[in-house]
């Protein structure tokens, strides 16, 4: 019970930390809105050309775009969440201090990242989404259950997103430099999460592959749950499976990594 409160406090800390950067948040809202407008126009042209592409109608395609902009920083799709701090702490050796804390390293960072995600969702995600709903035709459900279903899918998406980025961060124990791996996170995140192009509309085998990868749990699943295109339970099962696999892998890698830590005296 006591430890539960600790991680809740860490999450609140993560939330507050990002809430301090008000101008940056506003700037982010603006940028996401601009990119949303650009993408919506291109999607509308695309769906004009080929209606029902990926099984969506135009309004659904538009909804998909704005949900993507809403989740872009929430899920740190191109990186920039807790993994950035973890990498920096491994690089500087401060991770040794974290290991001495009477708390679990992975849970600590998960809590911190969830706090960050929730702030980004409220502070940065909601406004572009509302803007989109006001100025473009969207396919939004009117019942509370669909929105509740979305929220659950979002929480699972946050955990999967963290799972991927935490694994990437731990690799720095061996690589020593996070530059390349951050780029990797960015490239795979942008391409495989469906932020550029809905995974439903990817052609052929490539489509089958990207839809099976954990990144599909981030934007594609929540979008399909919101728009009633996927059975929520099936989507949750997909997301939860990846969450468990990724967190377990993170745990394994973490114990291997922490055995490698050499504390340099100074």
């Amino acid at each position, binding site marked *: 019970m006591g430890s539960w409160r600790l991680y809740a406090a860490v999450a609140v800390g993560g939330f507050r930390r990002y809430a301090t950067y008000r101008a940056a948040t506003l*700037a982010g809202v*603006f940028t996401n809105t601009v990119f949303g407008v650009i993408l919506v126009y291109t999607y509308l042209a695309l769906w004009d050309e080929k209606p029902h592409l990926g099984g969506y109608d135009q309004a659904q395609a538009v909804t998909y775009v704005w949900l993507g902009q809403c989740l872009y920083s929430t899920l740190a799709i191109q990186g920039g969440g807790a993994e950035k701090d973890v990498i920096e702490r491994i690089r500087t050796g401060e991770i040794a201090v974290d290991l001495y804390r009477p708390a679990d390293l992975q849970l600590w960072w998960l809590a911190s990242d969830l706090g960050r995600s929730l702030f980004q969702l409220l502070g940065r995600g909601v406004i572009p989404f509302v803007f989109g709903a006001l100025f473009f035709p969207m396919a939004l459900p009117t019942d509370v259950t669909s929105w509740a279903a979305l929220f659950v899918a979002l929480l699972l998406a946050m955990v999967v997103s963290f799972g991927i980025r935490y694994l990437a961060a731990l690799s720095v124990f061996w690589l020593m430099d996070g*530059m390349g791996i951050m780029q990797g996170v960015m*490239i795979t995140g942008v*391409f495989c999460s469906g932020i550029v*192009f809905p995974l439903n509309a990817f052609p052929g085998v490539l489509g089958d592959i990207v839809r099976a990868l954990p990144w599909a749990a981030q934007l594609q699943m929540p979008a399909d749950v919101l728009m009633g295109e996927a059975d929520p339970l099936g989507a949750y099962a997909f997301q939860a499976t990846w969450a468990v696999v990724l967190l377990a892998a993170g745990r394994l890698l973490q114990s291997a990594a922490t055995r490698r830590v050499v504390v340099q005296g100074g």
Partner: protein
Amino acid sequence: MAELSRLGEGVRAYWLIAGMWVRSSMTYRTSFVVTMFGNLLMTGLDFVGILLMFSQVDSLGGWGLPEIAFLYGLSVTAFGIADLVLGSMDVLGARIRDGSFDILLVRPAPVLAQIGADRFAVRRLGRITQGTVVLVWALASVDVDWSAAKVLLVPVMVVSGAAIFCAVFVAGAAFQIFAQDASEVQNAFTYGGTTLLQYPPTVFGKDFVRGVTFMLPLAFVNWVPASYVLDRPYPLDLPQWAAFASPLVAVACAVPAGLAWRAGLGSYRSTGS
């Protein structure tokens, strides 16, 4: 004359600082190669996105793939050059916040040159390379009756486009002096601008096209001159000569951007930390 010598001084300072960063990045050669390659891959992704779209359709807004590749190549190459020269502008906000901006002010070299060359990154050649490759492919595949004017217009577009984007970077930097923590607003205009120009103007709403033609004249980076090359109707029914106006537009952008930068510097109050 004083202005001219000051320009020379700026260019000299820029090369010195940029050279220093190049040498320092070469220290970790593997890391350099990896990030250069990663940069190429990263910037290539949005073209892959376009290819994915064209795996499903034959045209977008009435434009075919080679034509869109032409727009893309022009936009990305021009933006890449501006990004190479002035792309470090987005660290300005961070420098103001941590107080290190003050150091630049007391050094005997123009601040704009210093901040432009700050963390000068050769890896940014990745974007230019990628843009150029797509542009060359597009030039080879578009169905165009090439005339001398059309051939000449291509390099003019790249250079004027780069200048227009440079002006956006400088104006953004000036804005950051006021707004401090808002480097992302700049991204909306720089990265957003180049993304926008990768798609044909027919895709966008009329008011939107008006905005990026008359208010922030990004349309002159490629949309307007490319319409001439490709024999497409001009966006907003602009007159025929508008295709050749890009260099003038670039100058018209650079002047207010420079003035804004000066005003920004003049009003700068240190954080005091």
